[in-house]
């Protein structure tokens, strides 16, 4: 068990600068998820921690030790790879025992640990098989088992679920979460899948193009994204964005796009007042746009109208692709909706959950204010 710290970490491959001044403190026992699109540097960050890539500048600490110049084998980390990277010529047992054998662990202890891990993973009956005789899900478990038996200070998982089918992935997600609770060790997990990130992480670190965008709990990331990138990346379908302007009308603050205009509720207006007259980006999540006939309670409604382009039935909800004044956006509405393709439809936006960003810096205009608000509401 150990904490992990990235201090001003930079990484370049030749002339290409892929990680810029990464600063992260990961507490002992935390489940931190690196998430971001392809090429954002999330795997590289993890591989630097494992010692598989050198750090160009900056420091990486595991516990009380700076590990920049420590070989991977001496870092006390275990890693699960996307391809699982099992040793094809060894049995499952030998795959799991390999790391312990190299550390000259006594045979009886190896046997005990491998069998216990295999039992907890439900792969006891596979110990004599070779990797090629296993299914994808079984291989994944063996790869996790190989990491567990080592009892490392930090677990590193590099997209371990991306080769599994959808059903297995859901199971494996829950399994890894329960593993984290049971082992109480630091887990660092890389994924491009925001659902995995949201469901598993105690904190999520969003990266884009080598820059840390935001590091926070899943709740805060969703409700208070720091910038346009995070707002668009977290949540599915993604947040709708509109070019808008902040204006004043009858003593109230309004945000006006070429399609809509919304009055910002008084209790939320405070942080925006200083930006009056500015061009902003308005973000509305699809789940904050409702069919006017099926409104949830406790919202501050604002009427809009749009034409329905496409309807996607999901069973528990309906995704509407809408059009207003040649601007497309998406709504996630009640499954009982009577929306018809081509028809104009009255909709309601919950203006409590509007997100406003500076159109130049793309930073949230109310980030600090909302952080405090959330902390207060959640009694933190």
């Amino acid at each position, binding site marked *: 068990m150990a904490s992990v710290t990235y201090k001003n970490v930079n990484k370049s491959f030749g002339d290409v600068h892929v990680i810029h001044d990464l600063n992260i403190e990961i507490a002992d026992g935390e489940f931190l998820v690196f998430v971001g699109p392809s090429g954002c540097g999330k795997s590289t960050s993890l591989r630097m921690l494992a010692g598989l890539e050198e750090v160009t500048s900056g420091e990486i600490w595991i516990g009380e030790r700076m590990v920049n110049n420590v070989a991977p084998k001496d870092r006390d980390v275990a*890693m699960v*790879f996307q*391809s699982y990277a099992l040793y094809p010529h060894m049995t499952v047992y030998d795959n799991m025992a390999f*790391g312990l054998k190299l550390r000259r662990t006594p045979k009886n202890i190896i046997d005990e640990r491998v069998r216990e891990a295999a039992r907890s993973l439900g792969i006891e009956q596979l110990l004599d098989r070779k990797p090629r005789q296993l299914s994808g899900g079984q291989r994944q478990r063996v790869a996790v088992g190989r990491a567990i038996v080592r009892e490392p200070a930090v677990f590193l998982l590099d997209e371990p679920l991306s080769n599994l089918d959808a059903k297995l992935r859901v199971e494996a997600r829950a399994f890894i979460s329960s593993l984290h609770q049971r082992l109480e060790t630091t887990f660092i997990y890389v994924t491009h899948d925001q659902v995995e990130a949201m469901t598993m992480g105690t904190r999520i670190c969003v990266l884009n193009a080598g820059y840390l965008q935001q590091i926070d709990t899943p709740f805060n990331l969703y409700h208070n994204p720091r910038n346009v990138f995070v707002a668009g990346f977290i949540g599915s379908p993604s947040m709708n964005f509109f070019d808008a302007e902040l204006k004043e009308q009858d003593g109230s603050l309004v945000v006006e796009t070429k399609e809509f205009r919304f009055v910002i509720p008084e209790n939320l207006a405070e942080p925006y007042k200083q930006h009056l007259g500015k061009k902003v980006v308005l973000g509305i999540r699809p789940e904050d746009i409702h069919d006017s006939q099926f409104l949830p309670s406790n919202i501050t409604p604002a009427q809009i109208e749009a034409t329905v382009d496409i309807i996607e039935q999901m069973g528990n909800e309906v995704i509407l692709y809408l059009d207003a004044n040649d601007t497309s956006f998406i709504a996630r509405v009640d499954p009982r909706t009577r929306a018809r393709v081509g028809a104009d439809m009255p909709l309601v936006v919950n203006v409590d959950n509007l997100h406003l960003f500076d159109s130049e810096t793309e930073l949230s205009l109310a980030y600090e204010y909302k952080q405090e608000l959330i902390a207060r509401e959640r009694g933190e």
Partner: protein
Amino acid sequence: MASSDISVSTPSRFALRRAISVVAFAFLVLFALLEAVPFVLTVANSFKCLPAVQDYPQSFIPVPPFGVECRTESGASRPAEETAGPLTFNPALEGYERVAEFNLPTWFRNSIIYAVAITVLRVMFDSLAGYALARIKFPGNRLVFFIILGTMMIPGVVLLIPRFIILKQLGMLGTYQGVIFSLAADAFGVFLMKQFFESIPEEIEEAAMVDGANRLTMFFRIVLPMATPALTALTIFSFQGTWNNYMDVLIIVGGQADLWNLPLGLAQLRGQFGQTLEWNIFLAGSVITTLPLAILFFVFQRYFVEGISYTGLKG
């Protein structure tokens, strides 16, 4: 109209296809026979008495009595008609008995020493060098590889004289080590191993590094066992190449008959008799030379053909 066209053309097209496949098979059988004939005749003639070897047409079906005597009690050769018919012959062991009177065991032993030592060294050096070129980043990595590759483009004959001069200066001419060390690594093997190592996913090696392996442990316990198909191929090529190596051994050990290998010995068998080459002795020597290689190939061909599967990777 259209339907009748189809009904007419279908059987004829079928017949045409059949005819083509018959002709194709006939060709294949013909060439297979052409390839097999020299081997059959080599083995058959090695078991004949000399007059029967020179008898035409060549007989190739052994029939009893086996182990006939090739000479009459007075010591004269028995004429061909007595030991061979138009297609059949009575096998005799004269060729093998006579070849055994030569220094065959020494040549055989030398062949084994050269082939085993050179193969072992090549497998070791070629795989280590191939691995270094495939995975370790060092300045000049590509240059070294291209130089090694470049030596493959030079005809082997061109290297004979420089090699001779170097070995002479080192005082290694006419010694076992002269043969063994000068052939202990080869560009082809390095190339083969490098290409194979590059096909092994790096993630497996990284997993081993995180698991606690250093470079050497990883090489010997993870990478090398996964390279079995390439190692098998390299073993077969090296063993076969060395076993049949005539030119290098001739240049390096020259006139020292006690260091000859089988190909040099065979040439000796041929040379000694000049015009009156005793074919049954020579062919018996050829069979003895070929046999170990044939056995080796049949034992290893399963591994040679069967590739290791990397199903340990993706799901």
